[in-house]
């Protein structure tokens, strides 16, 4: 482990990390093909042992006990050299969840494994549950020291590559729905687990269906405790949203802020930029985007001052109007060119992709409708709807399949 602690200055940290990377990192090897290529696992093990994977975590949990600010220096140094492995305390969902809510033995056994390699996916959505995340019907039945799992998950990112999945299951059918759920760290590479990519309307396949038939997971792999999985899962999904949010922010940070907006470019190209009707539509669309940016800046300010901001919850909803709206205007601007697609029609392909992809925001990660409920109830304190299923044993709740 590197000799760095909370008293280290930024300069010291930078020097230590740069020296370490000079000694260990070989950028060329990473790009090499065949035998010359570096072994990812052994590289990650080196990073792990140096404590750079999770520098903000305590030393007993494989970190360096540094502050977020100090950790960022390490992350930056890695990122400049395009070296993997740092900032897993910010981005490795499996590791973070186990660190936050896993039992002591699970942390001991699994954190070293998580941090040195495997992708970990999050298996929660089910075809029959939809927005009702607690409506899981994937069964976990005890069998000796194991549980036997049968069920179907959907909308799972990275399920193809993942060695582990954090899996939401039902272990008690005779209590209300939130109280019979168990959350497992589930090994994906076993018989009885079939992963099938979903063909999305964008042409992408970011997500998968996962069919599980009689697969096994050890009882020691329960995250949290038996039938209390809903709480542990809340932690996991909160981090998933945070990570996605960070990803979006960081990607956005990369696009030039003052580059000409796509709508203006398309309008000019189509010779429609002087049309007052088009101009009103473009102006309003640009305004919606800019207003959302201003709201998010206020949110950041509020978070810095008060630790939280109710404005954060508006961004996703606002983004639906922005994305669907912009795509619609762009479609109209292109006119019949929008009928085309493919490499020869790049503008059309982009616009058509954006039009479909907008549903990723308005449906994915909680539909706009769910998002509005959340805003109304949590931000505006409007009263909840009467729950039809809160005090009903799960097996008695009405469902589509009955």
């Amino acid at each position: 482990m590197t000799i760095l602690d909370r008293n280290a200055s930024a300069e010291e940290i930078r020097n230590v990390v740069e020296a370490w990377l000079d000694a260990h990192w070989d950028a060329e090897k990473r790009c090499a093909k065949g035998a010359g290529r570096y072994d990812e696992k052994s590289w990650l093990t080196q990073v792990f042992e140096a404590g750079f994977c999770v520098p903000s975590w305590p030393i007993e949990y494989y970190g360096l006990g540094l502050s977020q600010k100090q950790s960022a220096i390490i992350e930056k140094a890695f990122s400049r050299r395009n070296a993997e492995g740092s900032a897993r305390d910010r981005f490795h969902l499996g590791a973070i969840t186990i660190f936050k809510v896993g039992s002591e033995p699970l942390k001991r056994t699994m954190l070293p494994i998580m941090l040195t390699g495997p992708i970990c996916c999050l298996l929660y959505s089910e075809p029959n549950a939809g927005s009702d995340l607690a409506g899981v019907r994937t069964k976990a039945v005890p069998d000796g020291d194991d549980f036997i799992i049968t069920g179907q998950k959907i909308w799972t990112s990275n399920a193809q590559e993942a060695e582990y999945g954090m899996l939401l299951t039902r272990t008690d059918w005779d209590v209300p729905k939130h109280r019979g759920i168990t959350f497992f760290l589930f090994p994906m590479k076993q018989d009885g687990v079939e992963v099938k990519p979903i063909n999305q309307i964008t042409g992408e396949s970011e997500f998968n269906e996962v069919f599980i038939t009689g697969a096994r997971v050890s009882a020691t792999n329960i995250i949290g405790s038996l039938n209390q999985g809903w709480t542990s899962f809340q932690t996991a999904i909160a981090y998933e949203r945070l990570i996605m949010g960070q990803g979006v922010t960081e990607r956005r940070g990369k696009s030039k802020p003052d580059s000409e907006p796509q709508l203006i470019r398309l309008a000019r190209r189509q010779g429609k930029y002087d049309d007052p009707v088009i101009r009103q539509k473009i102006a309003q669309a640009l305004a919606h985007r800019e207003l959302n940016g201003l709201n998010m800046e206020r949110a950041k300010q509020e978070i810095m001052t008060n630790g939280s901001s109710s404005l954060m919850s508006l961004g996703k909803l606002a983004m639906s109007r922005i994305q669907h709206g912009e795509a619609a205007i762009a479609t109209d601007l292109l006119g019949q060119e929008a009928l085309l697609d493919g490499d020869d029609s790049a503008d059309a392909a982009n616009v058509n992709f954006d039009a479909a992809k907008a549903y990723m925001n308005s449906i994915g990660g909680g539909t706009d409708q769910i998002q509005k409920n959340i805003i109304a109830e949590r931000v505006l304190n409007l009263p909840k709807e009467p729950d039809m299923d809160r005090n009903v044993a799960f097996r008695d709740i009405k469902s589509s399949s009955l």
Partner: protein
Amino acid sequence: MSQISDEDRQALRDGFARYLEAEADEKKLRSAIANDRGYDEAIWQQMAEMGLLGIAIAEDSGGVGGGAIDVALVMEEIGKKLLPVPFLSTCVVAADMISRFGSEAIQQDLLPKIAAGELVISTGGSGDFVPLSDHDLSLSAKSSAADWTLNGQVSFVSHAGNADYHLLGLQEDGVDSAYLVKASDAVSKDRLITNDPAQRLFKLHLSDARAIKLEVLDADGIGQVRMRAIAALAAEQAGAMRAIFEITMDYLRTRYQFGRPIGSFQAIKHMAAELLVEVESATSAALAAAKALDANSPDAAKFVSLAAFTCKDAFRTVSAQAIQMHGGIAYTQEHIAHLYWRRARAGLPLFGSSDAHREQYLKSREAA
């Protein structure tokens, strides 16, 4: 103007709807659009059998002499099932153009074949009767004696893949001309990649291709062809949006979440009620356009514009909201909702944008 009685019309429609319900399932649709032809030949032939391909063709040319209202009924059913058949180009636009401007000989040659399902005609080029005008048209026509030859390229030609003839418009200095070009060695075709997989668009390359020129294209006649085509399109959209709306309502009634059918959630209900207003308004507009055309009403142009933007916009809204209301399941290619949505988007530029038709509608209102 229709020669079909009200009872016969109803029977025709019921028969077609029943047939489609039984035969035109989603599997056939998906298999048709995966093929080069793009539509199911058996369904097309059955439509010929039922007299539908000659619906707008006069009885003495082998058709059944229907009017705009009859075309609308057929188009509505086509829309409901998203049938990707070349009906609009062949049986509406081309049949109408040939009936109005073709020589007696051409009429007697081609119209019966259209009605019999023996002939597919694609449309393209430039001019008011062309659904998708090629803005960068590089087509030229030259004549020697009675023969015409065409050279150049035309893009956005629909259904050219297996068309027997291409009906190509050429608008120069505001004057329309139209040519019928036989599919032949002198014409090669590139299929264009389209966003709606059910849409078939081609780029034609013509090299000294022999052509028949249609005579005396008067602006009024062309206007009639255009209006009838727009009314037909509007009816197709009205039918299509009703179908995806009903699919969505079925889903809302049967999909349970939080222990309740999702259709019992008030916000979803309100979305549904608002969409119903769109669907019914679109149906009314399409109907009014067809009736006004058949009645030779002075309001026909007004109602056609109204139908055009109302149905385009409503289909777009309804199909887009259908995806939203289905949630994740409709974000997949496996679900049918996106096919309706793509059809809606594919309809937007046909015969001019919604904004253009709104402007036109206001002009008609002033004139009234």
